[in-house]
Each structure stands twice: as C-alpha cells, then as structure tokens.
C-alpha cells in the first residue's frame, strides 16, 4: 500500500474501534440513575465514561488521519446509521441488568485480549490508546466477571436472567472474531490485531467463568453479523436520533 492509502486504511480501522466504544458507551450511559443501587449506578457511569473517553481517542485519531476538517465530533454526530461500523452487540438495547453485565463481561474478556495485542501495534498512536484502555478494561473485567459469579450463583431468578441474556447474546459474538480484507492487510503490516486468533483464548476464558457461574454460553447455532459493513440492527437508528439531535438541529455551531 502507498503511504496515503495506509493512512486512510488506518483511519477506517480507528473509526471502527471508536464506533465500538462510542455506541457501547452510549448504552452504558443509559443506566445513569437506573442502576439497582447507588454504588452500581456510580460504577456503570464510570465504565460509560471510560468508553466515551476511549471513543474520543480513537475517533480523534481517525479524524486526524482522514483530514478534510474531520473531528471526533463530526465523526460521532454527522454520520448516519449505514456509516457506523461498530459490532452489532454493542448497539443492542441495554435490557435488564443481567443483559448489560453479560454483554459487558463477554466484551471485557474480548477487549482484554484485543488490547493486549493492539499494545504491540506498530502504529504508536493506536498502541498508546490501547495502553490506556487496557488498564481500564482490566478493572472492568474484574468487576463484570465478579457479577457473572454473583448472578449465576445468586438466586434462581438471577440465574434465570443471566442464562436468558447469554441465550440472546451468543449469536452476536461470532463477528467479534471475523476478519475482513481491510483488517487482514493492516494485520500483515503489524498495525491491526488478528481478531480471529483471539477466539480460542476468549472462549476458554468465558467458558471457565460460566462453568463457575453454572450457566452456559449456548453453541452458536445462529450468528447475526454485519456491523463492520454498516449492516445494523434496527436499534442503531433510534440511538443515533437521540445521540445526534442537538448537533443536527443546530448545524455548524460550537458547543
């Protein structure tokens, strides 16, 4: 690839990672004042805040490479549904506490592995963001893993809800580990992470936790995918209507 092409490809890559963080952060932020008790409200808001920060770092870098006056905000607020490239799992509605925490745990295990690899990226900006994010994720993971044990080993009700959440989530995990040409190319030059190589470690980690929590991640008899090519669920459009309203209603302003 030419220098310029590489930059644009890395920009798309950073955008993907930024979209993941932005959309998951949005869903987490919806828990504000809705948690099961105040400590948890605080904790969920805190995780949301980490993700918004991570989104800013990735989007800012994507915008910088993209040029043409792009900013983190133009990327977050001025693209429509089909241009967003986050994984589908991130955009699913928050559901109940079991659903939010089960998703978080599945993603925290994934992120821990992913960021540990991205740390080694030859792109020093991406590696830098990964370093900061990895610390946050190790904290998130400790928390969300503990919640799997609590919910799985708590009451019949909490066990039932957790298992239900995993039944709903399993088909969305497939695309976390599927690579496309763009990421393969970046992988070859040491910039991107080979996500397909993370699956075994991820699966063994979550299986261990779920065995301890006495629940199962059902085998993937179905798989819904398309986030990376902008083929989303119907939920994202509604999320964006809210996220982008002020910027859309008053275009061209500073805030």
């Amino acid at each position, binding site marked *: 690839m030419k220098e310029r092409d590489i930059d644009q490809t890395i920009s798309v890559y950073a955008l993907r990672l930024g979209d993941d963080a932005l959309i998951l952060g949005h869903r987490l*932020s919806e828990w504000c004042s809705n948690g*099961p008790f105040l400590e948890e409200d605080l904790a969920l*808001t805190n995780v949301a805040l980490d993700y*918004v920060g991570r989104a*800013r770092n990735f989007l800012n870098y994507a915008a910088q490479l993209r040029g043409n006056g792009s900013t983190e905000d133009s990327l977050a607020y001025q693209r429509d549904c089909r241009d967003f490239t986050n994984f589908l799992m991130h955009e699913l509605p928050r559901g109940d*506490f079991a659903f939010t925490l089960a998703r978080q745990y599945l993603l925290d295990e994934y992120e821990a592995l992913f960021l540990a690899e991205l740390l080694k990226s030859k792109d020093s900006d991406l590696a830098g963001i990964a370093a900061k994010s990895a610390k946050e994720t190790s904290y998130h993971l400790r928390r969300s893993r503990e919640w799997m044990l609590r919910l799985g080993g708590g*009451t019949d009700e909490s066990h039932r809800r957790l298992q239900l959440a995993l039944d709903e989530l399993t088909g969305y995990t497939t695309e976390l580990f599927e690579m496309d040409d763009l990421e393969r190319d970046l992988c070859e030059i040491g910039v991107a992470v080979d996500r397909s190589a993370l699956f075994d470690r991820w699966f063994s980690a979550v299986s261990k936790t779920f065995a301890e929590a006495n629940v199962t991640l059902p085998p993937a008899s179905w798989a819904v995918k398309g986030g990376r090519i902008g083929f989303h669920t119907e939920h994202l459009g509604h999320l964006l209507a809210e996220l982008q309203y002020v910027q859309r209603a*008053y275009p061209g*302003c500073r805030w």
Partner: protein
Amino acid sequence: EGLNAHFQERIDAEEKIEPKDWMPEKYRKNLIRQISQHAHSEVIGMQPEGNWITRAPTLHRKAVLLAKVQDEAGHGLYLYSSAETMGITREELIESLHDGSAKYAQIFNYPTLSWADMGAIGWLVDGAAIVNQVSLQRTSYGPYARSMVRICKEESFHQRQGYHILMTLMEGSTEQKAMAQDAVNRFWWPSLMMFGPHDADSAHSAQSMKWKVKRQTNDELRQKFVDQSVEQAEAIGLTLPDPDLVWNEERGHFDFGEIDWAEFDRVVSGSGHCNRERVAHHRRAHDEGSWVRDAICAYEEKKRSREVA
C-alpha cells in the same frame, strides 16, 4: 437538662459532635432530616441532568456531564453514610423518599428542556448549592461537616463547567444565545428559592442556628448568591430575569425582587412538572433492581456458608 446544657456548651465552643456523642433527640432528628434531604437531592438531581447525557452535543461535553452526574452519585453516597451514622439505614431513607415523607430540593422538579439547561443548572443550581455548602463545612455535626468539605471541592468544578457551557452558547449563534437566556430565565428564580423561606418564615431556622447545624441564615446566603451571580451574568451578556435587581450602595449588596412564593408552594405541593416522575423513576429503578440486590445477598450468604463448611 445537664446533658442538654453540656451539649450546647460544646456547640458554643465550636466542638464537633461525633456519632457516639450524646445529642438531644431533636438535634438528631433535625440532622437526619437535613442530611437525608441533601442526600436525596444529590440522587434525584441525577435525573434532570441524566436526561441530557445521551444528547450532549459534543463528546467532550458528554464526558464532562457523565463525570458530573457520577460525582452526584458519589455525593449521595457520602451523605447517606453521614445519615447512617445517626442510626438510620439506607433502606429506611429510600423508603421515606418513596412515600414522600423525606424531601429533596424542589428545583429538581423543574424539567430540563434544552442543552442550555445543563449550563444553567451547573452555574445557578450548583452555584446556589455551593454557597450553602461552604457555610455547612462548619456545621456542628462532624461527619456532615466533613462530607461538605469533600463535596465543595467537586461542586466548584461543576459550577465552572456549567458557566462555561453558557459562555460558549453566548459566543455562538442567535439561537444559541436565546437558548442560554431562556435557560437562565427558567432557572433563576427557582435557584433563589433553593435557600428556603425568608428567615422570619423559616420553621427550623432559629434552633438550627443555635445548634450551629446552620451557620448562616437563608436570607444571608441568598444575598451572597445574588451578589456573586450578577457580575457573572454580566460578564457573558446574560440578563437575570428580575427588573428590580439593582445595586444598593448603602447596603453594599444588590437589591432584588420578591420571590413568587405562591409558585414555590405550587411546586412543593405537587404541581411541578416532574414531582411524580422523579419519585416514580427512582422507585422503578429501585424495584427493578430488587432481584439484583437479592442475588448479591444470596451469593454472599452461600459464600459464607461454604467458608464455614
């Protein structure tokens, strides 16, 4: 009698009362009422601002707002802990909120209708809260006073952030300026009401001053707030919606118009836009979370019995 006199002597000597110290039952009740109202205000106050987190117009503003609401949750926690030192449980405090016997600041019954409201709340509502809380850093009950010290540090950030939102809007488009002015128009008077009734009409004031639960009167604090706000408003081109607002050379303070106490009473007695919803929202979240709280208890219980075995 002797206990009472001794207690008052300690107060007069500016000693802090600590949880294990003897205290008059009325002092205890008064403080529980005040601290729980303060705690509930932090917690209920998460809602009007939480209403704009998903719609914040930049990622920077979103992060700042999230952090702010998170701080409010933290303040709620300190304050619930302070109240708990007086022998009341969190569950009891929440129950009083739900059944209406405990109050929270009336201003949170006003709706947030535009992004500028995040500015007005930060600048005016947090601003008024700080004036009050600075004074309460010297309140006679130790745990409460110490909570106030921690809280004040964070609140002053919040106020500056709110002011900065309004400043940015006032430097923006015509529509943005109008949005900022509109928010200030709606939140100015309710902010003045936050200091409570005039001293002459205040039910709890005299005793609270004597016990140094309160250190300055409602009207003193309100005046301080008005004085500081006028200058700040002018600096960024905002007009405070009070035609009677004028500098009084003699008093060395700004005179200002009479608060519409009928409006205040209307909101207190249930006709605010959000009275029912704020409590219903809290109750819903609390009810929806009950299975989670049960799960933790059951899990901890199982763990303990395993450890014993």
